[in-house]
């Protein structure tokens, strides 16, 4: 029965879908049963074979072209749903109330007021500046859809002023404090989208000065997971280091880097940063796996050392 249960759950084990207790039971069984160990190995090999089909990131050009095409379409598309309920066909409401004159009058007044209020809201939102969300005006607030690339990011030594060169339809340059909203937007864009790894590294480096900002932390997590340059991923790691204890997302992303990053330096650094939270059950599970069968001698040895420092689980 045990072998049967194990074989039914081996796939979930490889995909890390088992609860911790089931995972532990399966590991214990496989350590004693040669047949099941063989099946686990075969499933892992098969999993790795399928993983050899790459999942390519969309190129910056493809992403930019898609965004621009969408933006053009949005110019001429009307929203439905809530808008239509507020402004569409008040006569249908009145027809329902034709036998109730007082209610009809009340509804007419309410409908008229709602229409006026809606129009005020439309006019108000279009004319006012939107301090939280940047409009697409190249001279004042650059929006991502009008930017085709970031050329350079330069911080003035000894100050928080940053000069960023970016391409819209022509090359433009803006300067401002690192705390400036538009500078932040450009840095966030550069961290995710720029084809030049040097520019991405500069932007991630500057963003690490403000990792409290949720958007910045997301950008750092994204860089750690997806950036093709190991230097950029290392910078992102350093920027996230103070959040490993308190932010489970950061911890999980570091575990992911530790397990799967192609660069040994990134993996080693992730392992160092996870040391203060080694008692976490997910961290412990990963350390156990690394200690058993990681190909990197240093990482295998460090994982064993960290596990040896942990108290036994009852």
């Amino acid at each position, binding site marked *: 029965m045990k072998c049967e249960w194990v074989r039914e759950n081996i*796939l*979930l084990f*490889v*995909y*890390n*879908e088992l609860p911790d207790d089931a995972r532990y039971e399966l590991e214990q069984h496989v350590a004693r049963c040669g047949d099941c160990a063989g099946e686990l190995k*075969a499933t892992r090999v*098969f*999993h790795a*074979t*399928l*993983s*050899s*089909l*790459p*999942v*390519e*990131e*969309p190129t910056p050009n*493809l*992403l930019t*072209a*898609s*965004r621009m095409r*969408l933006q053009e*379409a*949005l110019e001429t*598309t*009307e*929203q*439905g*749903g*809530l*808008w239509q*309920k507020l402004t569409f066909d008040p006569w249908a409401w009145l027809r329902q109330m034709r036998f109730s004159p007082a209610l009809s009058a009340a509804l007419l007044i309410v409908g008229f007021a709602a229409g006026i209020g809606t129009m005020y*809201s439309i006019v108000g939102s279009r004319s006012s500046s939107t301090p939280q*969300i*940047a409009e*697409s005006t190249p001279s004042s607030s650059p*929006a991502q*859809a009008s930017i085709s690339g970031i050329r350079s990011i330069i911080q003035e030594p000894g100050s928080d002023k940053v000069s960023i060169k970016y391409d819209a339809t022509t090359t433009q340059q803006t300067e401002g404090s690192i705390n400036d909203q538009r500078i932040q937007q450009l840095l966030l864009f550069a961290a995710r989208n720029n084809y030049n790894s040097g520019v991405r590294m500069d932007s991630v480096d500057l963003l690490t000065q403000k990792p409290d900002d*949720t*958007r910045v932390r*997301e950008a750092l997590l*994204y860089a*750690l*997971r*997806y*950036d093709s340059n190991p230097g950029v*991923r290392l910078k992102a790691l350093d920027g996230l280091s103070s959040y490993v204890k308190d932010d*489970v*997302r950061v911890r*999980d*992303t570091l*575990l992911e880097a530790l*397990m*799967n990053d192609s*660069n040994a330096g990134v993996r080693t650094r992730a392992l160092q940063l996870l040391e203060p939270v080694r008692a976490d059950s*997910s961290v412990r*599970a990963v350390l156990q796996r690394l200690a058993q069968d990681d190909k990197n001698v240093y990482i295998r040895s460090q994982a064993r050392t960290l596990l040896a420092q942990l108290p036994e689980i009852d």
Partner: protein
Amino acid sequence: MSGSGTQDPTTRGHMAGHTTGRIDDTTLVREAQRGNRAAFEELVRHYDQAVLRLALHLTGSESDAQDVYQDAFLKAYKSIGNFRFECTFYTWIYRIVTNLCLDQLRKRQVRKEDAPVAKDSEGEEYDVLSQVPDGRAAANPERDLMRRELGGRINRALEKLTPRERMVFELKHYQGLKLRTVGEILNTTEETAKNTLFRATQKLRGALGDMR
């Protein structure tokens, strides 16, 4: 980490920012429902790269992926007023995208297309794996050829799956989502998603068995 999307993460979600991003999404969705287009565009930027990556890997074509991207976000824009926060925006947008991709996969099945190659945005065909940058390719052309053949076999095996099996497998294996999330996206239970994954894997092992 780059080059392969099969992270097999010990994580609760493959996309960075999924959990705390929900707070920002709620504010942005409410703004977008009030007609703030910039808020909607910001929402788009939270997810569009992942959407495009999924569409590209499933369709194998840049132009088809762009069409899915366009249709998905336009649909979301038109119907965002009906969004009632019964699920996250992430789940909602992924539902729209997966439905569009399922339609594409079903159309391909009807036409019995065998697509070992993909098309770029200008309609030119190319081998999917030929786009994978590999600095070592020039030094080892034999290994490069083996990789391409392997990729071709895997693609042909994936095409033997039903559209739903293909979608579950794609979301779990290549996009790294949890089965619970896969179930939510496909409007089914985690158990059903699990069973679909088992079926898909068995079919793939049957098709690729001699590669073990």
